[in-house]
């Protein structure tokens, strides 16, 4: 039985991100600066998370050689793009002083998180060698999540 090292690190970060989104939600009716600060923290941490997934995990897995893996990672990257577009829309509303609703964002993130935790990371943890896994973990650890 191989370790769940990648799943464990990424689940921990998914939970942190949901916590940051929860903070934004709690601050929706608060002072604008408090809301903006929590939104910035959420966005920055989401950016780091996606960077780790796209540049430390997906590319290190060499999907060019594995058609199924390639398709899987392409779909995940598309989901990242949709989520980031949504974040950008919310940011624009914030900047114009309009009210924001993060329900859609919550739904998108939950769907993405559940998919990765059930279908992506457990598979990666089993399929890649311990050497490749160590290499990925070292890269993940270079980004403070």
């Amino acid at each position, binding site marked *: 039985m191989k370790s769940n090292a990648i799943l464990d690190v990424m689940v921990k970060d998914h939970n942190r991100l949901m916590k940051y989104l929860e903070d934004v939600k709690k601050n929706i009716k608060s002072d604008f600066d408090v809301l903006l600060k929590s939104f910035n923290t959420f966005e*920055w941490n989401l*950016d*780091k998370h996606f*960077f780790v997934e796209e*540049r*430390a995990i997906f590319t290190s897995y060499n999907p*060019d050689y594995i058609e199924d893996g390639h398709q899987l990672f392409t779909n995940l990257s598309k989901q990242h793009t949709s989520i980031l577009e949504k974040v950008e829309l919310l940011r624009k509303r914030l*900047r114009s002083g309009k009210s924001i609703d993060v329900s859609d964002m919550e739904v998108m993130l939950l769907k993405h998180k559940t998919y990765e935790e059930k279908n992506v990371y457990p598979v990666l943890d089993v399929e890649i060698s311990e050497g490749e896994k160590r290499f990925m973990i070292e*890269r993940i*650890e*270079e*980004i*403070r999540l």
Partner: protein
Amino acid sequence: MKSTEILDLMLKDHNRIMKYLEDVENNLGRDFGFLSNSFNTFQWNLEKHLFVEEKAIFTSYNPDEPDKKYNFFSDLMDQHTEILTVIESLRKKLQKREPFDLNELKKLLVKHKTFEEKNVYPLLDQEIDDCTKRVIIDRIKEIRL
């Protein structure tokens, strides 16, 4: 006169990246494993650097605000895209074990680095307030460069 903390950090990382590129150059014509490892190290470190610039620095400064001086952020993003496109084509050659040379990439990186060190970071260091600078520095330090 304000501190030059952002310039100092980014200059140090520019030099590290040029050193990684030099390692790739030194490995051209050598064993494929050495070349591939040095290329991966260079690419990963460059990606972290570009991520820091785009997500920790440019966005923290709110380039959307109508200030002509900072229109260069979108030019810098275009340069990043150009650099990453050249790297992608080199990686494809590397994967097919075709010979490649680094002259075009080197030229792009030197031009980009020189522009940032002369025109971007010194200006940012002087123009932004200490609080924004602190946020940017804290974010940069979350990524192991």
